[in-house]
């Protein structure tokens, strides 16, 4: 009997009791496939991420490019980026946005969707959108092997990356055009155009035009070819086609800029104040709102030292927050309420017009003359922000010039750029730069990139730079690579740094940034 027991006991274990292990080891709360069913959801994820969702907007964009574009200046001492001190962890965050939150989703769609399908085309366009913002911050970045599960990933030079951008956009547009008219792609999931292929074509071409001008100084022939192809194929021309992104209270997908503005740690920069106030620009009251203490449109300079921020006049409460589209002030609760579901601006027709204006000045075939494009750009932007025809007409012929913003530094007018189309080409280029910068608001990433390329608009130097690589009077040129690359991709990082053509710091100009 004892022996029998022992035998039975041992036998019970030699028999397999593990039949249900596979089922047990499957997590019911997760998916194990990225197939056709998941693709639309992945596209939504990539869209929200690429445009900076709530979790990343503040540290990746607002405390970076938005300040470098001098739309805003910091009114608190808690952050130092306005004095060009860089926070390495935030550079890593930008890479997370693109490589972890965007690229794997798009790659899955590109690889799994039918060749030449609308899904593949949209994923490719979004891919270019996400990566151009990244490479324009850092320069060479891992690109061709992005989202591959490998232990080391090489950096690619910007020229090769841009070449691939153009190819992808060209192919995507061709594929979209080949679809039947009225075809909807990712309908119910596409947060920008809800699957409207025609708008996606315009968006892709405008992106191509933007990228073409970006390389206009460094690769003029390619630039002209791409720009002309883009315009010929059709770019954004009216505000009804503007790209913006749906936001939601659900999850972590609220409007990042609105949330950041409610925290109220930045206010109108004296640079944009000088232009908007001097121009009597109708957009002043849309982009910004009167300060909550004195009811004035007040600004402060970028890069104020902590001691200057002691001055109550430089506090948030005495300077202009961004407009009521994003946040509203409640006097009774002494707090800002963010408009967390406001659609997020991505790209506007005005930008396309200004890009065409510059292209036309370059002698490219932009389908219209430079002045017409310039004035269409202003019209589109003012219309977008609610100005009426009378105001627009007055603006186009205005003789107003930028004014002293009236800040604690007693800053003079930042520039003397007129609004009305000037006679000489260099002023015209500057005008286009200024107006495009105004129209791009609040897209600080694109505005900073174009400021670096063109030098426009003229900006105040930061009052104090605490970055030894960027002496007083200079402007920030790029962001250094994330330091975690030294841990996990060290060999390739070294090669990537070699591609930079300068030290891996914030003073080294990118490939397309040849203007001094």
């Amino acid at each position, binding site marked *: 009997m004892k022996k029998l027991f022992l035998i039975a006991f041992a036998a019970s274990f030699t028999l397999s009791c593990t039949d249900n292990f596979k089922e047990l080891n499957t997590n019911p709360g997760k998916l194990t496939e990225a197939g056709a069913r998941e693709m639309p959801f992945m596209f939504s994820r990539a869209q929200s991420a690429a445009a900076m969702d709530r979790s990343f907007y503040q540290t990746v964009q607002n405390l970076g490019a938005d300040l470098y574009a001098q739309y805003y200046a910091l009114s*608190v001492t808690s952050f130092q980026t306005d004095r060009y001190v860089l*926070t390495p962890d935030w550079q890593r965050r930008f890479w997370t946005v693109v490589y972890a939150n965007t690229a794997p989703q798009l790659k899955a769609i590109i690889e799994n969707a039918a060749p030449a399908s609308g899904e593949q085309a949209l994923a490719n366009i979004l891919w270019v959108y996400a990566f151009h913002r990244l490479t324009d911050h850092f320069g060479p970045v891992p690109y061709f092997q992005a989202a591959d599960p490998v232990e080391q990933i090489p950096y690619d030079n910007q020229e090769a990356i841009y070449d691939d951008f153009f190819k992808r956009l060209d192919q995507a547009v061709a594929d979209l055009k080949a679809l039947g008219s009225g075809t909807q792609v990712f309908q119910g999931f596409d947060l920008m155009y809800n699957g409207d292929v025609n708008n996606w074509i315009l968006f892709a071409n405008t992106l191509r035009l933007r990228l073409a001008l970006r390389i206009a100084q460094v690769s003029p022939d390619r630039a002209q070819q791409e720009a002309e192809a883009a315009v010929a194929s059709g770019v954004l021309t009216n505000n009804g086609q503007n790209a913006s992104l749906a936001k939601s209270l659900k999850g972590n997908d609220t409007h990042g800029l609105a949330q950041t503005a409610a925290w109220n740690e930045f206010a109108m920069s004296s640079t944009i104040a000088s232009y908007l106030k001097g121009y009597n620009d109708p957009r002043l009251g849309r982009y910004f709102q009167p300060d909550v203490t004195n009811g004035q449109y007040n600004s402060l300079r970028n890069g104020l030292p902590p001691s200057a921020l002691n001055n109550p006049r430089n506090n948030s409460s005495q300077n202009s927050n961004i407009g009521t589209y994003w946040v509203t002030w409640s006097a009774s609760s002494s707090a800002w309420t963010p408009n967390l579901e406001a659609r997020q601006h991505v790209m506007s027709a005005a930008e396309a017009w200004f890009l065409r204006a510059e292209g036309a000045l370059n002698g490219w075939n932009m389908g219209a003359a430079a002045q017409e494009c310039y004035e269409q750009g202003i019209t589109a932007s003012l219309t977008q922000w609610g100005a009426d025809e009378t105001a627009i007409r007055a603006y186009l012929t205005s003789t107003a010039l930028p004014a002293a913003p009236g800040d604690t530094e007693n800053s003079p007018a930042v520039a003397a750029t007129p609004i009305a189309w000037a006679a000489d080409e260099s002023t015209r280029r500057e005008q286009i730069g200024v107006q495009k910068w105004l129209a791009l608001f609040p897209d600080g990433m694109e505005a900073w990139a174009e400021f670096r390329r063109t030098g426009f608009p003229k900006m105040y130097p930061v009052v104090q730079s605490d970055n030894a690589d960027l002496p007083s009077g200079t402007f920030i040129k790029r962001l250094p690579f994330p330091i975690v690359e030294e841990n996990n991709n060290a060999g390739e990082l070294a090669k990537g740094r070699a591609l930079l053509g300068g030290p891996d710091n914030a003073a080294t100009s990118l490939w397309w940034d040849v203007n001094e």
Partner: protein
Amino acid sequence: MTKLETTNVMTIMKTRTSIYHLLLAVCFTLCCTAGLRAQENREISGTVKDAATGTPLTGVSVRVNGKSQATATDASGRFALQAAQGDVLVFSYLGYRTQEITVGTSASYTVGLQPAEAEELGEVVVTALGIERKTRSLSYATQQLSADQLDEVRDNSGNIMNSLSGKVAGAVITPAATGPGGAARVVLRGNRSISGNNNALIVVDGVPIDNSSNPQANSTFNSYGGSDGAANLNPDDIESVNVLKGATAAALYGSRAANGAIVITTKRGKEGKLAIDYNGGVSIDQPNLLMDFQNTYGRGNGGEAGATAGESWGAPATTYPDNVRSVFRTAATVNNSVNLSGGTENMQGYASYTNNHNAGILPGNDLDRNTLNLRVNNTFFSKLTTDAKITYLNQKISNKPRLGDTGTPMGIYIMPRDMSEAELRDFEGTDPVTGEPTRKYWTTSSIFDNPYWDLNRTSVNEERNRVTLLGSASYQLTDWLRVLARYSFDRYDDKETGRYYNGTVSLGSVQPGGQYYETYNVRSERNIDVLISGDNKLSGDFSLTYNLGGSVLNRKSNSLQNMANGLSIPNQFNLSFATTPAFNNVSIIERELQSIYGSAQLNFRDYLYLDVSARNDWSSTLPSPHSYFYPSVGLSAVLSDALSLPEWVSFGKVRASYTEVGNDAAPYLLDQLYNFSLGAGQGFVSRDLTRAISNLKPENTQAYEVGLDWRFFNNRLGIEATFYKTNTINQLLYIGLPLASGYSQQYINAGNIENKGIELQLNGTPIRGERFSWTTYVNFSRNVNEIIKLSDQSNRADLSTSTRLASVVAVEGGSYGDLYGYAWEKDANGNHLVNDAGLPIVKANTKIGNFNPDFLLGWGNTLSYGQFSLSFLIDGRVGGEMVSGTDSFLGAYGLGDYTAQYRDGGLILPGVKADGTPNTTAIDAQKFWTAVSQNGRDAWGEFFTYSTTNFRLREASLGYEFPLNGGAFKRAQVSLTGRNLFFLYRGKSTLDIPGMQRRTIPIDPEAALGIGNYQGVEAGLLPSVRSFGLNVKLSF
């Protein structure tokens, strides 16, 4: 019960719950019926002697366990009574260790009792699977602690693991500084696993309990520390704790015990009249240690006053030196416990009720714990014994503190030095329209709220209901073979609720109206095992004991959250008011482990023991065939019995062992996962950041251990020493992948981590007099860790994704726990480099420390004089570093006392410029501290790195035992206790900056944000707590 014996284990596994419930039901039913008298009694006689001197002992109580027969030894130490073969005789005598022998075929026995102060000698310890073993026969190190050593002086956290500090050689106890109910990290003999669990297993009455902790900090970002399973243990129910330090000790518990095991035996009923014990205590808890602040300068920057500035870099001002301290309260902790025990020879019962009220030093942060424990032991037909236990616990933690770089303590520390208590308490206004509170803060901030807003307008409360069931039945098949079946079930339900008033910013994203959530976490663990134990006398000199068993362990965890971020009616904290109701599936875990194991011990003349064991596990988390095997072997020789040694040697033993332990992995690693999350449109799907590993292999630890145990001078001096070496290979290791891969990490099988170390325990009784005696012990341990090999792909693995202040990394050739961060760069000649602005030039990714101590020391003493006894424990750690984010904020905000230097400039950092010329640029304190602290959160680690060397008076107690003669009371004792009383020494900053004095670590060097592998970096910890208590023990 006969049915159970023959039930095929396979069937048990398949039929699942019905059988377990049947088993339980049977146990409980049988508890209530009377057993029958045993048969075949015959006369057993013998002599009881002092084991050390051989002197016969008079008046020794001798009884048959579980039966009524009892007697006492006569003047020559002799006894005689009726007992049956297989009965257990219990010998107890004042001043001697109680001893048990099992009646065999012989009718006569000689028993040597060990003097009580040499407890460990004849001590029977509870080892793996609840198997009792004599310490002398063990081939590995254990350390036994009595209830008194653990429950008299209690930690404010209420977690008994913290009471092991300093008392166990080789144990590094790190409490999470999260207030009452906080988790504790217990690492024995160093960290073995790079990415996995390094905590010791906790076993109660033979069965591992769930000690998983709710999420632990993995960065300095603000978070709420989760409690753990050990925090639920009721110290008042504990009889003894045995620490099995090595892998060997725990081979039979399987993988989870690879880090050693804390084996807890709880109280059980004793035969006899009803006995009632009462244990009550109150203690007063207060911050032990606060940082040193400057008390000269007020709000502002650049030496100028700034009314709305958050920093204290302003002009000299009226300051309030105690403003920080004023926020913390002196808290009162109250413990009350009563237990009843008693029974007949065949049935003993134990019941207890304990109420703990532990108050944290932050207002509103309390823990209330009620524990009900019921245990019944039965004997039937003399061959069948059962043990049934049910423990029910209800625990509430209110206002859990949020730690981290923007948590509540940090919010307190950073208040300006010129902020009065009154100004600080003015934390809110009222919205005249809605009547709701409006947030007030002294400066504009997206990351901090007034601490009083935090304390009054945000709260996270946690309630846990936990039921632990244990039922076992043991049947003596023959006089040499016993079978034990055991069922245990441990389940707890946590409900956590979070409330954040409209306007709260410190959480990050509280949507308009406020935020409310409910998180439900249900965890259960079910273990069934069957164990056959045999004991055979092979020949005159040899005997064999052996165990063969099998078990099935199921673990489940399900964590779900209902989130209302945004409330339609502001501050109505109920899901009904959610503007956007959201349901989050936080985590699901389900896994099963099936095991068979066996062990055998060959005993030669009771002085030479050979042990072998083997185990095979099948884990659901591994790919097919799910299986792994691991063996162990050990040898123990009691030389004092084997050889003729001098008189002054009371006992001597040497031992050696080799063990392997396998380990499975976390579930769901085999397939690439994709996550769903809410968002615009219809929601998002994204690839999981962890790369799947389809060919996962089990992890393997190989451990060698040799040790000795010697006693001298009639056991008045003892030394125990252990040397060990463990290598953990094929580690389930997370390594980082390039950011561009889109994965944050991947699991690989690689690595070889080596731990080598020594543990020494000395104990002695220097004075043993009529009225006065002094016993003392010293524990010393040292562990050296080396990462011999990481992987073919990578020679570095990050243990956390956070790079703030410092990263915790494992580097090939380095040791576990290395801290890397920004350090002040040096030129080839060793001069510090300074830039043109006169500030340090730093280099990223430089080693700035290691969080493990070099060695640990504990010195405990008990002095008795008459009815008085005084105990104290001094313990210390030497070596190890911590990067303090608290300190970087003190620097950034101009708060630390050291920031008062060089306010007006004149700080010329000693160093050279890039061209080699000496730095001549003078800077002021604000420039320097703002630069190196990077505003606090992202500080350059080396400038805020501290040695964690510290020595403290950990515990002290003064007790008085009332002399009682008859009456209602059997025992009455009163003691005054103190814990964490003061530091004898605290570590200094590691970077020596000439012109500045070395700073002293501003927080408790042993505290941590959490108990995970993210250690050595802190930010915004609660101050450690000093407790003064009064304790009363009464027995009726």
